[in-house]
């Protein structure tokens, strides 16, 4: 689960970088980069952090 979170976060970065090659339109690039940032945040907050919370010391 944590490993998946790391991969998703990295994927978001790659999507953002690919934006410069996908289109030359500024609006188009902005949308793709924002999608990339959203993927990054999902990776960190939604997947990675949740994986750590499952085994958090305060649950024991």
């Amino acid at each position: 689960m944590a490993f998946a979170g790391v991969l998703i976060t990295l994927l978001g970065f790659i999507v953002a970088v690919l934006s410069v090659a996908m289109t030359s339109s500024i609006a188009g690039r902005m949308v793709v980069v924002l999608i990339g940032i959203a993927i990054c945040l999902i990776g960190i907050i939604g997947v990675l952090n949740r994986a750590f919370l499952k085994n958090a010391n305060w649950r024991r």
Partner: protein
Amino acid sequence: MKKTILLITVALSARLAMAQAPAAPPAAPVPITDADLKSVAAPSNDDRLKGDPGGAITGTVADIAVADSKKGLTVADALNQVGQNKIAINFVWTLVTGFLVMFMQAGFAVVETGLCRAKNANHTMMMNFMVYGVGMLAYWLIGFAIQMGGVGGNGNLGGIQPLNTEWTINLFGKPFGLFGQHGLFLTQGGTYDVGAMVMFLFQMVFMDTALTIVTGSCAERWKYVAFVVASFFMGAFTYPLYANWAWGNGWLANLGANFGLGKGYCDFAGSGVVHAVGGLTALAGAMILGPRLGKYTRDGKPNAIIGHDIVIVLTGCFILAFGWFGFNPGSTLGASGNGNLRIGSIAVNTMLAGMTGGFGAMFYMWMRYGKPDASMSGNGLLAGLVAITAPSGFVNTVGACIIGLIAGVLVCLSVEFIDRVMKVDDPVGAISVHGTNGLWGVISVGLFADGKSNYGGSWNGVNGSVTGLFYGDASQFVAQLIGVATLIGFVFTFSFVIFWLIEIVVGHRVSARAELEGLDLPEMGQLGYPEFELKARPVGAGA
């Protein structure tokens, strides 16, 4: 009568003709010759022997270095002196501002220690103290070469031509600079150079600022040996990589030249490079370490664990605000030439954003909780300073105030989110102050840059001034967003993997017994306050 009319007509015609005649060309400038210079009189020895209380005869033609004493003073000597004076001004400016940034380590040390419990005072101070040396060693060995080894020179500091080898790959038909290759040990590749030394000092203290952010989020439960290893890797690789991409002629800086995105990624003094890198690494560390014992109840509700000395916390905030006058204005890397007189504007932006950040946090806490919380007001000041760091060189004072005000509120919201929703334990609020507001600072360049700055007519190799979305350039905003995605997507991931490897090899967390006892004795062998009897206050009490 006729004669009079005739005379008037002639006079008017003559006057009109004179007015229409082309103006005489201005006299051609007369070149100064060596002979002219010899006619400039130096103060006599007799005059000098009387002393110079008014300062009128100190610093004259007599003080210009002469290359050939037989020839005497020449035009070449005078011009060389002018050039050296410009570089000397820039050297002194950059060094002195670097010294101010170095002193920020003291500010971070007391802020973090004050926000931690007395039983961990020695441990927290020692981390903040030794991160300076550990980071410096790593940066001297390899970090500086990775970051600046391919920057391609700097006109303000006399060229620094040896820093000219960037390792690049070709992507989408364009070169993507990834890391520099000159400057190992500050000798390799011709970097035993006066300009390179100034550049190293200034960049080193910036790197150390990023490293010390992590000690805050991981405080009160971090093994000292794990801290040393993590700090070394961050100073050697994590920080220099992103700094190269943004400041060292890397691919982010060239987004403008290669893909038409504004002036490329712009981060004047390091909201992203220093603070977001530090804040996101702090997040990775705090997630892997887990919360302190007692921070959360069994049903996940957070307990407040208050620090032991609010006096030194706010004193530390003042020290940091003072040091920030080195951080931002110093990032011009000079005070003479190339639009560097903007240092006054940068300094004023810095102080204004810090002020509005403090106000934003104070009023938010006052309205939400009924009291103007001292530690959050301090964090608000720091958040404003962090946020203005990237845009300080590109925005006006109104923009600076808005950026700071938003940062002050944002830091409070972020602390609540990280504490209550993510349940990541950050004893000093480092993730919110530096991570969240570092990202906000990067974004704010793309919004508020007013297009009035002019640092030699171009930025990142693209002609014109940095201009944000609110002033008509949406493409600059996109470049900034790509920087944000790189910080969250790459820097966080890279830091997380390094912390994970250290967890496997060394282990990050101290034993539960050591944590409950306080880390001063088990980790450092000495109490921070040996003459005081420390009584444990129940977690959550007094908050």
